[in-house]
Each structure stands twice: as C-alpha cells, then as structure tokens.
C-alpha cells in the first residue's frame, strides 16, 4: 500500500465517520484525484477482510464488511436495550459526579472512556457542555432524567453520599 493510502486509511479509522474527500486532499496536500486512486487501493487491500471501505462521490468511510453483517447484527441486537457494564459505570459516574470532564471520568474508571462517552451521547443519555477554550464537560441529559422519572439529579438513590464520595475525591486529587 502506498504511503498516501496508509495515511488516508488511518485518517478514516480515527475519524470514525464519513470524511469529505476534499478535506482529505487538503490535509494531505494532494489533488482529490490522487485521493480517489488511493481509496481504490485501500478498498483492494481490504478485500476479504472484516473491514471495508464505502465511498460516495464526496465522502469515504470505513465500515464493517458485508460478510460479517449478519453476525454483527445478531451480536449488536443483544445489547440494544441493555447497556454493557462499562457503559453503565460510565453513566453512573457522570450521573453522580457530573458535570465532569473526560479526564476525570478516565481517572475514576482507570481506562480511556472516549468510546463509552460517544456511545452514551449517541443514545441521548448524555449532554456535552462546551465552553469556549475549555475542556468539554459531560452530564446526564434532561431526557434521560425524565426517563428515570425524576426532575432533579438529587433524587437519585444515595445522591448525597455518592456525589461527594471521599473515595472518589481522593482519587481525583491524587492524579491531578
């Protein structure tokens, strides 16, 4: 695979969504025609793998391949109505400690929570609070609170003690 194709593949992989061909051309400082050729190369290289490339006239995106669609559909349907333990934990941290930064969430969980946060955002359970020039903070969404039948977070069980857990405070303090 050419170096250009490798760069494009990595860009698509880290973007995690459809990317404009024109944007890639700009980032990589090449003509769009070269991008199109490189995409063809990536598509060929991925032949027979579990990942594939989808392209339109304007966009490209890495996706799971057709050959595994059935398996994945079956696998993913299992946790449709259920959140994984990791997702539940992330959600609980945000519910009791929010608004909270991703850094603090990571510290409490001990692992990178980017993907979990993304998943929870997609499901409408979280809201992202952005302030110019500062790190985003996360809190549970109004919709989710309503779904829990609550009007205020303070109605969560053991809110008073869990939201100011000494244990967690110390942990965050230590890693600052």
């Amino acid at each position, binding site marked *: 695979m050419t170096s250009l194709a490798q760069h494009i593949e990595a860009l698509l992989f880290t973007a995690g969504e459809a990317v404009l061909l024109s944007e890639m051309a700009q980032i990589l400082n090449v003509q769009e025609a070269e991008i199109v050729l490189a995409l063809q190369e990536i598509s060929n290289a991925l032949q027979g793998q579990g990942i594939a490339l989808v392209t339109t006239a304007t966009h490209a995106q890495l996706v799971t391949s057709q050959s595994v669609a059935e398996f994945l559909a079956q696998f993913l349907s299992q946790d449709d109505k259920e959140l994984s*333990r990791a997702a539940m934990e992330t959600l609980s941290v945000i519910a009791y400690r929010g608004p909270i930064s991703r850094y603090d969430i990571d510290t409490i969980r001990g692992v990178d929570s980017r*993907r979990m*946060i993304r998943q929870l955002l997609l499901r409408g359970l979280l809201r992202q609070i952005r302030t110019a020039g500062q790190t985003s903070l996360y809190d549970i969404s109004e919709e989710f609170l309503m779904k829990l039948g609550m009007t205020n977070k303070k109605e969560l069980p053991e809110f008073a003690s869990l939201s100011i857990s000494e244990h967690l405070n110390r942990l965050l303090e230590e890693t600052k």
Partner: protein
Amino acid sequence: MMIGMQSVLPEVHIEQYEGPYDLLVELAKKEQVKLADISLKELTDSFLAYIKEYEINSEIIGSFLIVASTLLLIKARQMLPSVQSEEDEEVLHLRQRLAEYEKFREVSEALRTRWKLHELLPAHYFAEGEFSEPQNDDSMPDITSLSLAAALHNLIDRIPPAPQPSAHLTRRGRSLQEIFALFRDRLELANKLVFQETVHGSSRQDQALSFLAILEMARKNSVRLEQEDAFSTLTVHKL
C-alpha cells in the same frame, strides 16, 4: 585527608530518589561510571550522607535502610579492621541485584524518550464530541436509578485501595540526628559504653542507624571504637 560528608554530597537534593538502587545509580553517574564498574565502597559515604541528610518518604525509607545496613558492612570493615575482610555474601548479593536493576533502568530511559513520540491511536480517536441530537427515544435503553447507583458502588469497590504503609518498614524510627544526640548524651555521662547494650531491644532499623552514627562519630574523632573480633562486644570510648 578526611573528606567531610557534605563535600561528597553533590546536588542530590534537587530530586527525590525513588529508591536506594536509583540513588546508587545516580551517585555512580556523578562519578561518570556505570554502577557495575564502581566499587560500592566509593559510593557508601555519599549514600549514607544522603539518607542522613534528606527526609525520605516514610513509605520507602525501609528500602533505603536495608541497603544502608549492607553498605555499613563495607564501612565497618574500613574502620574496624578486625571485621573479616573478604567480600561477604550480603554485599555480593547487593551487587548482583544492582547489576540486574541497572539493565531495566537503562532500558526504561530509552523507552522514556519514545513515550508518546509516535503513538498508535484507537479507532474514532478524533471523533469526540461530533454528535448531533439523539435519533429517537427508542435508542434510550432501559435503566433504573437503582442500577445506576449499583454501578457506581461497583466501580468504587474496584478502585485499588491506597497502599497501607506496612508496619515493619514505616513505624516511625528515630532520625540519625536523634541517634547522634542520644549517643552524645550518654557518653557525656559515662565516657564509655557498650554498643550492643545501648541498642538492645531497639528495632533493626534503629540498630543500623545507631551503628552508622558511631562509625560517623569515630570518623570525626569524637569517639574511639574497640572490638576484639568480628562478633565480640563493641565498646565506644569518648575522646
């Protein structure tokens, strides 16, 4: 010529050493040699001076004292010729461990220069925060507030506990200064004392420090030591 302890102590206070081996490697570095190529004898004074001078975190002081007690053997041989002179097992052991430790030290220095230089990234790395509103209400899973609380409890339980200081290492022992003072006071009263009797009943840590203290006093000519052979009574005379 007698070299004062302070003068063999280079700018060590700049950094808190992370352990006795770490300190020894750094002391050897200051002599511009690898630890494997220097005799521990040459580092003993600086090492002992360091632990005497600087407050070491109570969690790791024990490790320093264990090494100190081994180094004291070397020093004891210097000052008390009656102590047998062949390299004893304990010192040899320390040498071997240091040699192994130094390999990891070297490799970790190399890895530090690579840290986050050219890291590999996970999928969706740059995707954070690029989301629109949720598609529909169906996407919201069934969650109860109780399961939320349970999940947080679960998480808190799994956080590794803060380390409990282990009793044998961190029971606050006396500082070297305190032990100096103790010996001075006693010698003021008695003019001579028997080392073994004076330290009888105190911890191994305090005994090691006491030994260090009298060796140091002997070196500064404020006491004279007398011992028949390796394991006999050690008498300390005030000068």
